[in-house]
């Protein structure tokens, strides 16, 4: 594994042995597989690799293969593979699912995994490593090379990369000079709440003018869009500025990429789709709008600027609201102290294993012992017990139910020779269509309301759409619109004159802030004055201290206040997003029991905001240890987070087809039903089923952190400061535009329906009761 900062030329270093081995032109077929997390990166490497190869005149064929590759080209690649194939984890998994995989990968010598630090944090990495375990069987001499940006724990990533239990050599390059990072000074003050960073547009434009090429990063696509829109309006000098994010069409993205490479753009407004080591040449400034939720990501983004290895990279942070000013200052300190953060890596998830078993079955008959041996050679699955493997295999074969009712229809059957094979070979097609671990949520189209079908504006997630009430305003395609209603799976909106959306933006990569940052922020709150913060933010904190309090490490601040027709409770636990999320689930369940009619909550790394119909008068009983522990015992039952987790795991593991939940059949939607029903049914009749076990493990990994809640409760003891206020506080304001709201389905819903029914019946002149 080679670790070097961006701009160090590590990708080319990774390819050098390949070029040397292929130079004599004797190798037939596939020699090197290059895998990157991004399609754009594969295309970029193809450009950068082909140029020197053609200039030297080496007899090497280089091709890429991603979701964008045409059918014809894919077929040809399998029959006659190039020497070097550049691809993504999903496309590789697909290649291993074909019956001719053995033929295609037979002569494979090397596999290069680029940006492995990014892959190692997700299920895509787990899927990739399982695919590599398969390749190591098909091509026994295969060598693996991992390329990584600076990471906090190189041996942990090396363990994932290497074939278990083989050792992995780690090479660390000189990290280069420290980056030059500071906060952008603006004449306008950042708002209390909001995520767009619009106030900073004049200052950002000045910076763009003063530099050759700038990258302007945002944490979400929606924010990138609205920022771009307003940047254009203010761009009086007509500077060439482009936008790039994952939701744009391929043509649009390619156009921007080409213009960038040709040096035609002065700035690109972008999101994580440009986050990884794409070499854009002359970028000399990186601007990060919104708090960099973790320091590692910040450092990697800064790596974009100034690709000369010995010059420091230059970056500016633009906090979007005043809380983010505090976060940015903390992040700057952390970056200067080289205090990189990261999550510990867990065991390989079983839903990905189930998918891998199905992919293996699609490629042809297999022996369970052989496959188990292969699987545990992947680092993340090294400790997988045979029993758990067998349960996953049984799930793939028979459904794994206590009630054995699929004997005749099971998916995999055991042949007399002890090998498993697909009962119906046509199932291979369905398995291939379900490959992948990225879950796209169901989307609904948004249109302007118009008699003859208005202009399409884009798409929003179904879950977000379900939270909308007529009159809500939200942001899409760079404009603010008003929700009018739902018509045949399309959301109808009108243009809204307001300049601030009422409802949180719909898309967001949810980055969790590390505990290190939380601790730094709490330490900052203890200061009497804040000379190290801009005056507006220091005033804002002083105001919070005056009207309420500032959170402290060994106490728990709970604020309750009415806002916008609902009662709110804000709990500042500073326990990290996962723990705050769990706290939200536990507290809303306790509030439901106390008759406070909670409606939903949203969590950040610092706080949980709960809203409902009735005000919280006394916070202490909510936090009683016995009550919460008791709630913890039962909460795992039917909560919304578990159901959401179940749906994701069920899709990855192949329990349901990817397109089934949103199945749009011509005969109407009554044929499809919600995965929540499957979850409830399993819980009732087959509570030890492996899918529930996977769901629980996933929820524990992703959302729940009872250990940290328990630690928090121990730390605070009975030091709960409950402040009741007539209106929202400075510190609570940023929470109102957070993404990732969780709805609570309790008695409040019944009350709302009864209220509305009474109103509607009266309006229609109908009797309220039958």
């Amino acid at each position, binding site marked *: 594994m080679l670790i070097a900062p961006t701009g160090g030329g590590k990708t080319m270093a990774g390819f050098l042995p390949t070029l040397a081995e292929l130079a004599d032109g004797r190798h037939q077929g596939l020699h090197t597989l290059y895998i990157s997390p991004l399609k754009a990166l594969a295309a970029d490497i193809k450009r950068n690799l082909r140029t020197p190869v053609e200039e030297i005149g080496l007899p090497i064929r280089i091709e890429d293969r991603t979701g964008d590759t045409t059918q014809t080209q894919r077929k040809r690649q399998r029959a006659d593979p190039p020497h070097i194939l550049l691809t993504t984890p999903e496309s590789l998994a697909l290649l291993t699912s074909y019956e001719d995989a053995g033929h295609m990968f037979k002569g494979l010598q090397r596999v290069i995994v680029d940006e492995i630090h990014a892959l190692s944090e997700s299920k895509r990495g787990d899927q990739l490593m399982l695919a590599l375990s398969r390749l190591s069987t098909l091509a026994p001499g295969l060598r693996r090379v991992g390329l990584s940006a600076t990471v906090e724990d190189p041996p942990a990533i090396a363990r994932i990369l290497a074939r278990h239990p083989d050792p992995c050599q780690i090479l660390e390059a000189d990290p280069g000079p420290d980056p030059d990072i500071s906060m952008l000074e603006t004449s306008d003050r950042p708002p209390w709440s909001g995520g767009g960073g619009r106030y900073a547009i004049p200052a950002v434009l000045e910076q763009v003018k003063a530099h050759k090429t700038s990258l302007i990063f945002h944490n979400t696509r929606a924010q990138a869009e609205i920022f771009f829109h307003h940047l254009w309006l203010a761009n009086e000098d007509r500077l060439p500025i482009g936008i790039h994010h994952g939701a744009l069409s391929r043509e649009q993205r390619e156009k921007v990429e080409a213009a960038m490479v040709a040096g035609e753009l002065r700035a690109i407004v972008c999101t994580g789709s440009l986050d990884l080591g794409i070499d854009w040449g002359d970028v000399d400034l990186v601007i990060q709008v919104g708090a960099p939720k973790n320091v590692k990501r910040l450092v990697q983004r800064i790596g974009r600027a100034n690709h000369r290895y010995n010059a420091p990279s230059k970056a500016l942070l633009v906090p979007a609201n005043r809380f983010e000013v505090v976060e940015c200052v903390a992040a700057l300190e952390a970056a200067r102290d080289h205090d990189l953060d990261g999550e510990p890596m867990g065991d390989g998830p079983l839903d990905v294993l189930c998918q891998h078993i199905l992919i293996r079955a699609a490629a042809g008959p297999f022996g369970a012992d052989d496959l188990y041996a292969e699987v545990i050679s992947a680092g993340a699955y090294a400790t997988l017990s045979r029993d758990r493997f067998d349960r996953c295999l049984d799930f793939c074969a028979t459904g794994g139910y206590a*009630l054995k*009712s699929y004997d005749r229809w099971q*998916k995999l059957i055991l042949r007399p020779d002890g090998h498993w094979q697909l009962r119906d070979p046509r199932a291979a097609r369905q398995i291939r269509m379900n490959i992948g671990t990225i879950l796209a949520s169901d989307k609904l189209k948004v249109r302007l309301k118009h008699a003859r079908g208005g202009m399409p504006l884009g798409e929003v997630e179904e879950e977000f759409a379900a939270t909308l*009430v*007529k009159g809500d305003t939200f942001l899409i395609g760079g404009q603010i619109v008003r929700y009018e209603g739902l018509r045949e799976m399309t959301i109808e909106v009108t243009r809204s004159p307001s300049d601030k959306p009422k409802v949180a933006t719909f898309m967001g990569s949810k980055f969790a802030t590390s505990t290190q940052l939380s601790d730094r922020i709490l330490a900052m709150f203890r200061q009497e004055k804040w000379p190290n913060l801009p005056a507006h933010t220091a005033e804002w904190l002083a105001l919070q201290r005056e009207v309420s309090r500032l959170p402290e490490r060994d106490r728990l601040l709970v604020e309750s206040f009415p806002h916008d027709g609902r009662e709110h409770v804000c709990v500042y636990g500073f326990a990290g997003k996962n723990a705050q999320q769990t706290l939200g689930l536990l507290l809303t369940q306790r509030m439901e029991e106390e008759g406070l009619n909670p409606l939903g909550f949203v969590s950040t790394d610092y706080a949980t905001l709960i809203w409902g119909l009735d005000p919280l008068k006394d916070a202490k009983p909510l936090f009683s240890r016995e009550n919460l522990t008791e709630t913890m015992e039962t909460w795992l039952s039917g909560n919304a987070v578990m159901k959401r987790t179940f749906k994701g795991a069920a899709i990855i593991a192949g329990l349901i087809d990817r397109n*089934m939940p949103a199945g749009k059949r011509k005969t109407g939607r009554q044929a499809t039903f919600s995965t929540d029903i499957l979850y409830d049914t399993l819980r009732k009749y087959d509570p030890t089923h492996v899918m529930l076990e996977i769901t629980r493990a996933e929820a524990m990994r992703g959302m729940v952190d009872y250990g940290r809640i328990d630690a928090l409760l121990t730390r605070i003891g009975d030091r709960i400061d409950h402040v009741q206020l007539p209106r929202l506080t400075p510190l609570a304001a940023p929470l109102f535009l957070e993404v990732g709201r969780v709805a609570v389905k309790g008695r*409040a*819903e019944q009350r709302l329906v009864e209220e509305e029914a009474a109103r509607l019946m009266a309006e*229609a002149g*109908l009797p309220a009761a039958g």
Partner: protein
Amino acid sequence: MNGYSFTFAGLQLEALRSGALWWEAESVLCVSDLHLGKSERMARRGGPMLPPYEVRDTLIRLEDDLTAKAPQTVICLGDSFDDLAAADALSDEMTAWLATLMAGRRWIWIEGNHDAGPVGLGGTHLSSFRAGPLSFRHIAEPGEKHEISGHYHPKAKVLTRARNVTRPCFLTDETRVIMPAYGTYTGGLHSHDAALAGLMSPGATAILLSDPPVRVPMPR
């Protein structure tokens, strides 16, 4: 068992929380779209192997209604089975249980589009059934009077001041009642779908399956 009582064709009917319809005066309980055997049918056709417990779950709920109301007549309003083969494939345990539920009362299977044809489970098989002023059939017929039907699995969405709430529902107007699906593995069709909006008169209402059921003007 708190249901919602309403007047239809001059009769007093009760929409039960479970999705069943109770006609007390004649001791008739009507359920629609049980879709028994749906998981078996999906697996048989090469689809996903869903948790095979929907028959059990549906029968448990049906048994609760039968115990509470002790009807003399039960009408299953069609699509009782996901297809005829699914009816044959019911396990012995489920078949015996169904027989217990049917014992001692008149049981009428109305044919649906999924289960057109007799099944070997006893009871009376009819394409439609008339009782007093009411006619029972699977799919609503435009122009029919005092008709109880199923098929569409209606659901309705209420926009409350804080959130949208969607629930399966009964749709009612002067001439018809369209029943919600009773089976566990069933989805729903929005009342604002053209198919339903076209069938129901302007004054139609929806009775939402909540606890207790709530009546609203039919959302369009």
